[in-house]
């Protein structure tokens, strides 16, 4: 009845490629939906962004083997989606965007069924189903029929069924859709906790920049079925830390941006005047924000405001959307 060989494989080493898109193209109903996608995704949590109809869900479905590529291929953990669909699915958990459940079952029975279909023996499936439901925060409601759940509970039970069999890779398609703010916060906390646990990689498809920014380390932006941008958010954030906006005043409260700019330039900073008498600085390597405070204190000036640039994902996304019709930037 049971085999010892695990289908889910071993832990993924940090930095190893999870998904390799190799000229992947998909046509549905005679229309090209994905075109020549090329990228190597390797982060712990990767955001899949794009406007409606960009091909995010189609990409997930193609990686799951629901649609056959019309050209090129992709590899998930090194396995080709054209030839090793079952082996790939064994390592995946999928939370679909739309309402998806098996009618007439309680939450726990539903999650148990899904775990058994993934290959867990019945006792282990029951145990994992309870653990997954507890993990996502569905208490006694797990004994109620799934049909009677609220939208938020349905999202949670969908996440539980995606987790119950212990996958290495999670596909979450618009997980915060229709959730109220507390439920959304809870969902994002769960995603971050899975990411930080390191036991599973997460692909988060969303059109909400904030969700992706709060959870993801890397982002793949699709536009009209093409890769518009693939960026590492951490690296972008680190780069943005070098960009500061300051408001500097003298002891009597008079604006002192020009005087401070001279001092900062002596440290090697690039300076430019900003709006409302503010100063924009790009810090060179070896110079940190605290050096600015030291500099100001030495000159008897006061730094009244210091901002890091924080809307990096929005910048990346908008830049990608401004590209040409084919999505290239």
């Amino acid at each position, binding site marked *: *009845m049971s085999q010892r060989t695990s289908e889910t494989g071993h832990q993924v080493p940090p930095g190893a490629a999870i998904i390799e898109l190799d000229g992947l193209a998909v046509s549905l109903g*005679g229309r090209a939906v994905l075109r020549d996608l090329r990228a190597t995704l390797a982060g712990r949590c990767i955001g899949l962004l794009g406007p409606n109809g960009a091909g995010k869900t189609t990409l997930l479905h193609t990686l799951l083997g629901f649609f056959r590529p019309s050209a090129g291929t992709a590899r998930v953990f090194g396995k080709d989606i054209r030839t090793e669909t079952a082996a790939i699915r064994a390592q995946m958990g999928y939370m679909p965007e739309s*309402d998806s459940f*098996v009618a007439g*079952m309680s939450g726990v029975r539903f999650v148990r069924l899904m775990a058994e*279909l993934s290959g867990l023996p019945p006792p282990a499936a029951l145990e994992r189903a309870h653990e997954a439901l507890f993990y996502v925060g569905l208490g006694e409601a797990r004994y109620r029929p799934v049909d009677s759940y609220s939208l938020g509970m349905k999202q949670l039970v969908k996440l539980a069924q995606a987790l119950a069999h212990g996958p290495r890779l999670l596909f979450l398609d618009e997980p915060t859709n229709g959730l109220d703010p507390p439920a959304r916060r809870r969902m994002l906390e769960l995603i971050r*906790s899975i990411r930080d646990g390191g036991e599973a990689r997460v692909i988060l498809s969303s059109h909400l920049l904030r969700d992706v920014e709060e959870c993801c380390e890397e982002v793949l932006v699709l536009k009209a079925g093409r890769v518009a941008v693939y960026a590492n958010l951490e690296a972008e954030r680190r780069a943005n830390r070098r960009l500061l906006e300051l408001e500097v005043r003298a002891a009597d409260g008079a604006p002192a941006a020009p005087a401070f700019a001279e001092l900062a330039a002596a440290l090697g900073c690039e300076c430019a005047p900003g709006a409302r008498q503010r100063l924009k600085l790009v810090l060179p390597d070896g110079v940190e924000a605290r050096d600015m405070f030291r500099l100001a204190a030495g000159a008897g000036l006061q730094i009244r405001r210091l901002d890091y640039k924080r809307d990096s994902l929005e910048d990346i996304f908008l830049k990608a959307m401004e590209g040409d019709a084919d999505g290239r930037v």
Partner: protein
Amino acid sequence: MAVYERTYHRYDGPLTTRRRRFLVVPRYALAAVMRSRAFVMFYLLCFLPPFAGLIMIYLRHNLSALKVLNLPLDRLREALPIDARFFSASLALQGFFAFLLAVVVAPALISPDLRNNGLALYLSRPFSRSAYVLGKLSVLALLISAITWIPGILLFLLQGYLEGGGWFGEQWRVLLGLFAGSWVLIVSLSLLALTVSAWVKWKPVARIVLLILFFVMNAFGRIMEMALGTWWSELLSMRVVIQTVWANLFGIAPPTGMPAGAAWTALVAGTLLCLGLLFRRVRAYEVVR
């Protein structure tokens, strides 16, 4: 994912073999079906004809038990022949119950999964479309087997044991007819019912469609046969086609003039058509052109 830690952990325990994973589907589906008391009552009713057959076989070999009624024993022995026609007729009766069972159970098997996007969840796992169809098919196969070939073969064995001599050798074709005939019914009826369930999402409508396919097509075929005087129109009648195939398997006279080859061809073609339609529908997501 230990509860006390409240963190996510991967599963690294043993896994079931992929070949037998389709059996998960009937286990859950049968448990759901058997929750209905009305269905359990109906299902118990399906066992009455085999029970009546058991009594007939017993009486056939224990006529002395009826002596108390002062009945003419020789005539009774003639009136209770246990032969190919007896088993064929009992299979036909059980076939009718099997049809009713398919009408009740099948519409609830696939259409709810399509309505609630459940197929995407099944098929995102190491679980193929074939395994899904096989799993759903085995729900009906198990239920129908229990009222057709399993009691049929038990009655056959009882009859052979009580008759003694070379009865088994003389009547081997009955065994073939019971087993193969039942599976012909199970496969064709289940595939037809599942196909209707896959294409008609609303359960009551699916039941009506099944009744129309069976009774109305049967009546239409009969009327056309009477009007045109040819057996061709009887190919529309699933009942006549299956009974002709059964007659061929049991080695008895067919119910109409339809040749066995035509009945087999119609049955195989119908089954393949159902299979094609079923697989066309059983997909994680439908592509809208």
